[in-house]
């Protein structure tokens, strides 16, 4: 590991050096410039914090790292409420990891705190290695910058008679352009919505209308596959509700609600 690029001080690209200026010094408090946009993501920020410990990544203290990250994100949040969700997810995860590291391992079949910490270390090492590799790659002599090809190539098709030098990029771009034009021109096509439509809800309710002699809760009518929560479920609930109102209006359904915000019940009108 001694030759590994992770210990090579030249591996840090120029952007790294400047981005590091805004970093907290362990627990030095809020006198820091917080610029979340300067980081590509939580892992990127973690890596910078880890580098700040100025030791080999394999020997950083994950506990300390977690503390620094949590402190940084906490401060950043006070200044910028709209802190990206990614950073908060990582914060929650690190808080969890911290508790796993501090408390004795539970008996469950989950990976231990140490295993999770080791995986995180690996992730940081790998990203650092790639950032280092990128910097080293760019430092190589580059064609057209440091090294030059023949400036006046002579027409000499003795080797291959390549008439057209269309590249794969040109080909794919042509297809992409064609697809985009296809989407933009012509009659307006509204893409099928991924939400549950009122038409679907009415059709579904009509199908089961005859089989509802007893009062049944509206929530029980959500179509299968639409109950996972989120906006899809909400759309299914809303559409089904509107559908019941429509059907009640035309007398094909009876509605009952015992009080504000209490469950809505429906049944087929009794003869």
């Amino acid at each position, binding site marked *: 590991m001694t030759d590994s690029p992770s210990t090579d001080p030249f591996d840090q690209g120029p952007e790294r050096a400047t981005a590091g200026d805004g970093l907290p010094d362990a627990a030095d408090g809020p006198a820091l410039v917080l610029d979340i946009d300067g980081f590509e993501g939580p892992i990127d920020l973690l890596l910078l914090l880890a580098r700040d410990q100025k030791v080999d990544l394999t020997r950083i203290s994950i506990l300390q790292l977690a503390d620094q990250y949590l402190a940084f994100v906490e401060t950043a949040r006070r200044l910028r409420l709209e802190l990206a969700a990614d950073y908060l997810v990582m914060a929650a995860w690190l808080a969890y990891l911290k508790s796993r590291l501090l408390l004795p391992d539970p008996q469950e079949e989950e990976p231990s705190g140490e295993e999770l910490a080791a995986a995180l270390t690996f992730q940081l090492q790998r990203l650092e290695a790639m950032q280092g590799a990128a910097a080293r790659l760019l430092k190589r002599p580059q064609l057209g910058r440091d090294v*030059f*090809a*023949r*400036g*006046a190539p*002579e*027409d*000499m*098709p*003795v080797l291959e*008679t*390549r*008439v*057209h*030098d*269309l*590249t*794969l990029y*040109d*080909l*794919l*771009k*042509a*297809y*992409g*352009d*064609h*697809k*985009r034009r*296809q*989407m933009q*021109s*012509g009659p307006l096509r509204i*893409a099928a*919505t*991924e*939400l549950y439509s009122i038409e679907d809800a009415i059709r579904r309710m009509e199908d089961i209308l005859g089989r509802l002699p007893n009062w049944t809760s509206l929530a029980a009518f959500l179509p299968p596959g639409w109950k996972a*929560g*989120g*906006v*899809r479920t909400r759309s299914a609930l809303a559409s089904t509700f509107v559908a019941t109102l429509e059907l009640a209006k035309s007398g094909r359904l009876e509605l009952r609600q015992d009080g504000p915000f209490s469950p809505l019940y429906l049944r087929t009108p009794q003869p």
Partner: protein
Amino acid sequence: MSAVPEDHNQQLRLLEAILFASADPVGEEILQERFGAAVKVRDLLLELQLLYENRGVNLVAMGGRWAFRTAPDLGEYLRSETEVAAKLSRAAVETLAIIAYHQPVTRAEIESIRGVATSKGTLDILMETGWIKPGRRRETPGRPLTWVTTPHFLDHFGLETLRDLPGVEDLRAAGLLDSRPAVSNLPGLAEKATAEADG
């Protein structure tokens, strides 16, 4: 602009590199300016010319401007049927792309996909490139000819199989296709869309 190396041999190497990389013959006075008054560029040029005298490439002067040129006596070995690289029209590139993605595809289908008539010439040109060829006839009324890509097509574009052509989703992800504004952007839907796109 970096200074000029002091060492004579380094100056010779730099001159060699400049003349090699230049797209046009370089005027002697421009070189003199580049190397500065302390350097005798004419001497350097003559030395370099001598160095290349019997080589496959010679340094030649044309009206006070200098350039490397392949040796005239090699002409007979170098000359061959000279084909000028021709640029494909946008219609041709698009037709090629559609054949690649939709093959086997008939001319009528190509026209219906592109929304414009395909001139006979377009398919001819593409066939001349060796990238497309007629495929089987479609077993529908009129038994129209279909078009497919050739192995040479894969070769030219560095693809191992046709399955390696990026799909529409890949193109979109790579930024080659604008994404349509979709409901998928709503929270809660995004995960589902990803799951489908990534399969």
